[in-house]
């Protein structure tokens, strides 16, 4: 059966069980869009290519499937780059299809031509330019395989227009073999046995879970492991939800805006079991003083993450879920259970509990609406069960601190790259993937304006996303740094010319609500969350509220500024 390149793309997408694509048409992808219109694939027409990629990213996180974005050549492709780089930092499985000018024109500085394969080489897991239609199906299949296998990541496939028009024989799927790509899933059991021995000796152990624990689906095994060994758990921003945020063993997030007890526990612990983390600088602070008393165990599927920033005593390369399964089996088999679950640990747990009671997460309730209060109320009104997306900055940190995530795949944030403008398109992607869930974007007034155009997408497809804008008329996090470290010189961080967000919501055909005083917060949240369609809820918050604790850049994580 002869098919055009465009038809082959559709067939492979079907084969890969793709059920939603996010994209934006243009000259180089006209034939792909024509073929798309003749399938039953759901396509979500965004208003900016960056939105398409963030939506695909978030769809992937909410559903654990591969996200797919489709954009045109040139500016379409360059607009997609931020989203691709973000997905790369956060290890999100995604295939981005970009149109390219016709093969004959490549290299000619043609209209809407850029070398997107060259541009995205350092920010994709892998990328391809398909010059031969005979290789199209195989390349797309490889792209999906690479995107979801091992440490996931975005793969870009650049397809010249003439390849989408040309015809070739359709070749059925064969066993996919790649001689140069075979990630290690099964962890080394000897290494894991050493972990058990270390747990027996440890008096002050801590588990540190990251995005890898969520991606590998290890939450259940992680919870079992921590509870069986009675070891407290902290998490990176990407690890929130991997362990129940309301469990007594939960320490809260660590790092620059981590809790006091998490950061103190890290610096005092004698054993640190790191699961699916890469020891980002926002987590470690000054690396020389990070966990300096601890023997470090690091479990990760990506060997390059191990021993990169922090010296590791026991490296374990493999899938976090498989590693934890094995550890749990070993724990079950152990005859002397007491040696594992904590005859030595009472003192340690007591110390942590003291840190919690003397220095909890807290904020001053006086004055104007407190952003932290809004998030606490949001948690209450959504039973802690909403999918929360965030923008980047104070809104993101308060969401991380105060929403107390209990389940994985419920906190969707641009962690590694830190992209302002992520939250709204991410809410759209999550809502497409999980139509029955409550999806809330926690936003700042600065960030929301970076991709506000996606309101039109939400309204067009009737996606009932809820947007909580914590409006302080500042770029709050940058302002906070300026207040603390730049003598209060608020250089270009004041947002005195914000639009009227309620009217803006209405202009898009959505609902807009505003709370200006603390006593209006509950009513606005209640009405907003109960409304069927998309809603913007604006909360006029205390202007100069800061995120605390805060570790100044380059300092040890024990050197926290507290409220």
């Amino acid at each position: 059966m002869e098919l055009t390149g465009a038809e082959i793309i559709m067939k492979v997408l079907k084969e890969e069980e793709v059920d939603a694509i996010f994209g934006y048409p243009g000259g180089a992808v006209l034939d792909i869009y024509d073929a798309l219109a003749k399938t039953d694939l759901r396509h979500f027409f965004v208003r900016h290519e960056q939105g398409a990629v963030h939506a695909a990213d978030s769809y992937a996180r909410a559903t654990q499937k591969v996200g797919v974005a489709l954009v045109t050549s040139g500016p379409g492709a360059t607009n997609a780059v931020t989203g691709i780089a973000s997905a790369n930092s956060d290890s999100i499985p995604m295939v981005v299809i970009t149109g390219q000018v016709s093969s004959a024109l490549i290299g000619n500085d043609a209209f809407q031509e850029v070398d997107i394969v060259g541009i995205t080489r350092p920010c994709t897991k892998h990328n391809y330019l398909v010059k031969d239609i005979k290789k199209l199906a195989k390349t797309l299949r490889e792209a999906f395989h690479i995107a979801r296998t091992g440490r996931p990541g975005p793969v870009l496939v650049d397809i010249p227009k003439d390849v989408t028009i040309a015809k070739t024989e359709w070749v059925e799927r064969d066993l996919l073999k790649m001689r140069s790509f075979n990630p290690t899933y099964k962890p080394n059991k000897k290494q894991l046995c050493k972990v058990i021995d270390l747990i027996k000796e440890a008096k002050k152990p801590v588990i540190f879970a990251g995005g890898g624990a969520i991606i590998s689906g290890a939450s259940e095994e992680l919870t079992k492991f921590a509870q069986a060994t009675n070891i407290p758990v902290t998490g990176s921003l990407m690890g929130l939800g991997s362990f129940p945020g309301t469990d007594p063993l939960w320490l809260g997030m660590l790092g620059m805006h981590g809790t006091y007890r998490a950061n103190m526990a890290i610096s005092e612990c004698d054993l640190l079991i790191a699961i699916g983390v890469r020891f980002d600088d926002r987590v470690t602070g000054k690396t020389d003083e990070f966990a300096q008393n601890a023997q470090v165990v690091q479990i990760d599927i990506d060997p390059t993450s191990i021993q990169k920033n922090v010296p590791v005593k026991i490296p374990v390369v493999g899938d976090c879920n498989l590693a934890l399964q094995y550890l749990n089996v070993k724990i079950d088999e152990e005859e002397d259970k007491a040696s594992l679950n904590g005859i030595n640990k009472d003192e340690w747990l007591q110390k942590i509990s003291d840190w919690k009671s003397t220095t909890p997460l807290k904020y001053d309730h006086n004055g104007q609406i407190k952003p932290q209060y809004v998030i606490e109320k949001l948690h209450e009104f959504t039973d802690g069960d909403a999918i929360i997306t965030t923008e980047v900055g104070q809104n993101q940190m308060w969401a991380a601190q105060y929403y107390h995530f209990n389940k994985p795949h419920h906190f969707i944030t641009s962690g590694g790259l830190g992209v302002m403008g992520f939250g709204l398109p991410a809410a759209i992607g999550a809502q497409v993937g999980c139509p029955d869930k409550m999806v809330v974007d926690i936003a700042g007034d600065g960030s929301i304006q970076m991709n506000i155009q996606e309101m039109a997408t939400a309204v067009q497809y009737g996606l009932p996303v809820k947007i909580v804008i914590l409006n302080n008329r500042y770029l709050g996090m940058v302002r906070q740094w300026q207040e603390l470290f730049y003598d209060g010189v608020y250089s270009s961080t004041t947002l005195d010319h914000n639009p009227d967000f309620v009217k803006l919501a209405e202009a898009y055909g959505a609902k807009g609500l505003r709370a200006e005083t603390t006593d209006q917060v509950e009513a606005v949240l209640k009405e907003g969350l109960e409304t069927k369609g998309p809603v913007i809820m604006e909360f006029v918050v205390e202007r100069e509220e800061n995120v605390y604790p805060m570790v100044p850049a380059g300092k040890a994580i024990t050197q926290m500024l507290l409220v």
Partner: protein
Amino acid sequence: MEEKHILSILVDNEPGVLSRIAGLFSGRGYNIDSLSVAETIEPDISRITMITTADRVIIEQIKKQLHKLINVIKVYDLTDQKYVQRELALIKVHAKSENRAEILRIVDIFRSKVVDVGIDHFTIEISASIEKLEAFLMLLKPMGIMEIVRTGSVVIGRNNLKD
């Protein structure tokens, strides 16, 4: 402490692969001291021989990062193994009449050869290990070296390659 390492890297023989490797080094601030690339006996596989200098932890990262690239099939570190190393150089050296005999003597001692002669210069071809090549250049330097073109090292293990 910084160490010199010799890496022998098998890669897919495809457009863009060298750029991925060069990009990895520039993007992460690693050094490339020398680099040579050519097809192997299997036409769809190329071998890159690279010399890089860094401390031990970074060398480990370099090897792991290289291996992570989808087009990289195998990374061998030959540094602590037995190997034969050669580099080819073409050297254009001033050859005034009073120096000609001396240059030819040096060429002879190093088992290199004169491949082109001009009115006032020789062009010499030498294939040697880096140490020998450096020694050769040191001896020629006083004569006045006009131009040098070097290929970068190629290295082959004396036994079967181990990771």
